[in-house]
């Protein structure tokens, strides 16, 4: 197993009366790209903030590059890039001024690479941040996070405000960075095609609980969507090892995501005495079915 860039153990976080994270454990290895998905309010942003020491968990610990996330050294921070969900960049600055400012704060800043990014993403450098659109701000935030070629990139819905063409350009840049430097990437998204395109691993957060963390290729290989049909009624819920989701879809019929490494289809067939049609799923189908 490769070195862990991020490790979280039993993270618990409560905001107000609401428990946002419940004993979340997570690991991201060097060179991995983890796509974090979940429904709105599932706790994705809070998890990312806890991982970076921006929010303080009531329990558990997160470590980045082996250091405690809440007490990261400047050296560790210099290896890190982060794009927050809301690009909250200081007003009264043009993009150019902000780049110059951040270049002073980032010891590993690569001005040539940053200029290339600006050109490829068509960031309006002469515009002041308060006059930029949400998409332009997001692009500028991306350049600020990528300009020092970080070893770890954490992106909280980084392309939510971007058009499909720019989204593709961003994906290409991230892929390049990963191929050239082995950058680890953690990103949350609702855009499942990006997940398919970028992620090597996927984690699903459900109401503050990390339901699943898996390598994408393995998941595609091992998990199948089953249509189970029989004459008599099926149980409304099914909790057993290997069944990732279970949804009734009529009298005596159900759809289930089944991990065949834990539960061979033959066992399922024998258990229910039902006809089972199974097929592989792409990431989009998997996430939708899992979160339903």
């Amino acid at each position, binding site marked *: 197993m490769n070195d862990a860039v991020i490790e979280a153990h039993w993270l618990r*976080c*409560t*905001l*107000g009366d609401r428990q946002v994270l419940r004993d979340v454990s997570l690991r991201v290895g060097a060179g991995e790209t983890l796509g974090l998905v979940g429904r709105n309010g599932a706790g994705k942003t809070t998890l990312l*903030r806890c991982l*970076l*020491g*921006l*929010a*303080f968990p*009531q329990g558990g610990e997160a470590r980045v590059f082996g250091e405690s996330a*809440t*007490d*990261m050294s*400047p*050296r560790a*921070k*210099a290896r*890190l890039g*982060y*794009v*927050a969900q809301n*690009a*909250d*960049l*200081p*007003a*009264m*600055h043009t993009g150019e001024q902000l780049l110059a*400012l*951040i270049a*002073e*704060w*980032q*010891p590993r800043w690569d001005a040539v690479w940053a200029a290339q990014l600006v050109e490829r993403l068509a960031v309006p450098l002469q515009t002041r941040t308060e006059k930029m659109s949400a998409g332009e701000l997001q692009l500028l*935030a991306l350049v*600020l*996070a990528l300009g020092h070629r970080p070893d770890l990139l954490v992106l909280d819905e980084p392309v939510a405000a971007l058009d499909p063409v720019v989204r593709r350009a961003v994906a290409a840049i991230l892929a390049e960075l990963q191929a050239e430097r082995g950058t680890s990437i953690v990103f949350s998204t609702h855009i499942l095609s990006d997940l398919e395109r970028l992620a090597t691993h996927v984690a699903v957060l459900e109401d503050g609980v990390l339901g699943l963390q898996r390598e994408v290729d393995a998941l595609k290989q091992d998990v199948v969507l089953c249509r189970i049909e029989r004459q008599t009624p099926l149980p409304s819920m099914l909790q057993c090892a290997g069944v990732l989701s279970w949804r009734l879809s009529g009298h005596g019929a159900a759809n289930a995501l089944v991990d065949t490494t834990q539960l061979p289809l033959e066992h399922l067939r024998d258990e229910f005495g039902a006809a089972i049609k199974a097929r592989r799923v792409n990431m989009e189908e998997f996430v939708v079915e899992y979160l339903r």
Partner: protein
Amino acid sequence: MSSMSVRYAWWGPPWQIGMVATSALLVTVAQIGVQQSRPAPGSLSQLAAILLGLAAMGLMFWSFWLLGRGMQRLSAVVGADAIRVMPGAAHNLGGAAWLWCALAVAVVASAGTAFVFDRDGGGQGARIGLTFVWLACFGGALPTSLKQVLAVPRADDRSWFAVLPFIPLVAAWQVPGGWGVLLLAVLVAAGVCWQFRMLIRRLERAPTAGESRPSWRRFSLPAVKTGPVVRALGRSGSILLGMLLITTAPWASYTHDMPFRLYILLMIFYGNDQRGMELAGLRLRWLAGLSRLQLIPLVLRQAMLPAATDIAVAALAGAVLHALGWAEAKELSVLWGQFVLMRMAFMLSSLCWIDTRSGWRPGRYLAYLCVFCVIALLDWLWGAEPAVTALLIHALAAVSVGAMRWRRLAF
């Protein structure tokens, strides 16, 4: 990367830091010059003195802008997640000292210079110099910046503490020879440095387990959940104190200090700007497709009612000041007239504002421009002291404000 370069990044090059203090001194010296030379009304020397004062004021505004930008950086470092995780930012908070030091230097330098050079003038110069800096720190830059840095929850919550800075200033006025003002300057400088130190210490404190937010968020001004009564009291209080400040200051000669007077009025509004409440609803309804005719009752209720209340409070404040013998009737009536104009202009600007999708600024700056012109006209009609000079001042102010903002007049 040297630590110095990180420090400069907070504020900009060192020359910008020096500029704040220099401009404070220039404003002070220019105002002392105007006060002490007492040139004949309408004379060229008077015009020169006034222009010098205006130039110094322009420089001061430029400094405020730089200060605001520095504050934006500071608040981003403590508030914007993406920047907080950067190595040079969060671990070099000490660099923010420049910001507070510049303020402190400006306050002390301005008041100190005036105190030294204007002893014979009864400390009037000191008062003038300090007032500029005071208003810069507390009337403009600081409340806004503190609001961002200390996370004051709502914009309108500023109204109650916008009043506070005026109280010690008015009190210091009463001490003869400028000693009160000088003492106040030192106290202010010490106060901002102390505040800075406290803020930095809070920021550097390790987070306590269980805190869902960084500790600095807890360090905030009392987050008073203000109701309409408290807000109204805050606004009324600041109007009253602002008028007291303007009318009781011995240097408030009508002609020389007109730009300054307008500036104070603007600052009063800055502290209790009600545009958010007045305009948010209007804009929504306009976007929802209501016609201008349909908007009229809403404008009356949401914009004119607060305006009328403020105007009434200003009139009442004037009456009280006059009854106490602290201000002359003519002075008060002129002031009240300006107040009415400015308040109405703000109200009317709301209508301009809702016609633009680019924000409230075009309407606001158009309103400034109109107010400057109308007041100049009023000066002339009222037959006040050298009307031509006053007209020139206001025309210049109008042109400069207009020129700065012409691009935003996107009607």
